[in-house]
């Protein structure tokens, strides 16, 4: 069925398929730090979770721990800034969360969002770069794909990630 476009009489419904994947970059880690903890000195506090901690976090949050290394920074007041990423069926999202010294969420900001609906081969390449392996096909940002309208992803993976990080705070950082 042909899509119809009658607005303003302009015949402008055009099918566009991005070459590889769609991505949006919002913030660097430093910018997110400034947004969530403005004018606060953040000290790097990277942590490697032990097996015991990993199990406890999984049990407390009900969410699987995919990586035991935590990219965390600490404020003088005992708040934490953590960078995390989540992998959905078609999307890979890097985000930052500020957790207060009381163990509550202060603010969440998405750093980068990437999605692909590519065929099996392209998807493997796309996924490989997030596993830290080298990919022959670098991610290309398609700047022309903006203002996307459509039933889209749920934020469930991010909210699960935040649940996991709150448990991580209780078990490994507090």
């Amino acid at each position: 069925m042909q899509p119809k476009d009658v607005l303003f009489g302009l015949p402008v419904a055009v099918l566009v398929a991005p070459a590889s994947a769609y991505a949006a970059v919002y913030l660097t880690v430093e910018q997110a730090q400034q947004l969530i903890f403005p004018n606060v000195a953040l000290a790097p506090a990277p942590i490697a979770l032990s097996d015991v901690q990993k199990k406890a976090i999984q049990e407390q949050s009900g969410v699987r721990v995919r990586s035991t290394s935590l990219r965390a920074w600490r404020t003088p007041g005992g708040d934490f800034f953590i960078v995390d990423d989540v992998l959905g069926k078609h999307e890979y999202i890097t985000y930052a969360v500020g957790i207060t010294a009381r163990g509550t969420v202060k603010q969440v900001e998405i750093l980068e969002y990437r999605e692909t609906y590519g065929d099996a081969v392209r998807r493997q390449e796309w996924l490989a770069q997030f596993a830290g392996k080298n990919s022959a096909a670098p991610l290309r940002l398609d700047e022309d794909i903006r203002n996307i309208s459509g039933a889209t992803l749920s934020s469930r993976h991010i909210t699960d990630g935040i649940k996991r990080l709150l448990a991580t705070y209780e078990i490994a950082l507090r």
Partner: protein
Amino acid sequence: MRRARPALGTIVEIEAAQSADAGVEQAVMRAFDAVERVQRLMSFHAPDSDLARLNRDAYRRPVAVHRWTRLVLRAAQALWRDTEGWFDCTVAPTLVTHDFLPLHAGFDPGGRYEGSMADIEFERAGRVRFRRPLSLDLGGIAKGFAVDRAIEILQSAGVECGVVNAGGDLRVFGPRPEFVHVRDPQRPGAFIRRGPFSNIAIATSAAYHSRKTIAGRPVSHFVNPRTRMLLDVPYSATIVAASCMIADALTKAVILSGSDRVACLARYRATAFIDGGGLGARAA
């Protein structure tokens, strides 16, 4: 500048033109605050949201709710009438039964939620009551409403142009016309570029993210309000209107009625596009 946060069960993106005035960053933060407020008020499963309190108690006694919640309920009731019942927030029990929505506090799985949208009554002092038992879900209208509130904050802060996009329900404002990319319901990852548009809202409804199989039959989160049965639809419906709340709600009327010519479109000065598979392919 462009920022994104999880909210309303999806990702909400706000873009605002930078200017010499550092107030843009603040305006964007306040716009996100408004979106998060809509989430707190209208979340189906959060136990203390206005909506949860209504679903649990409004049949027994009037419940005081935030002005925004009342606005959305009034609009929802008017839209139900104007769309001849195609836009209907009372279908939540069907969605809960089939795991499209979680249980909410006080939900009675065996209960007979016999009320209709006509049973929502507005009383003094911001109170709302249900004349008959209802379980309402505002998922088909709250995202659009949140977008409108965010836009209002950006505009009154003097931001010249911007976009607020709540998981595909979006609104653009400012002098520069924008193209919009509607997801192709038949080819995930491909888009139908439309426009350019100025100062409008666009919302799209489709089944591709909710589709699953129950008893061998493909279904999605769309419920036919007349039969109360789940349907699957291969096409998507996109509405262009002045407000995102209206665009959001009208997508349901178009998707469920299968028609891009529902009478209320003219009243709301909205335009509809249907993309994807044949209109006849609907399960009753």
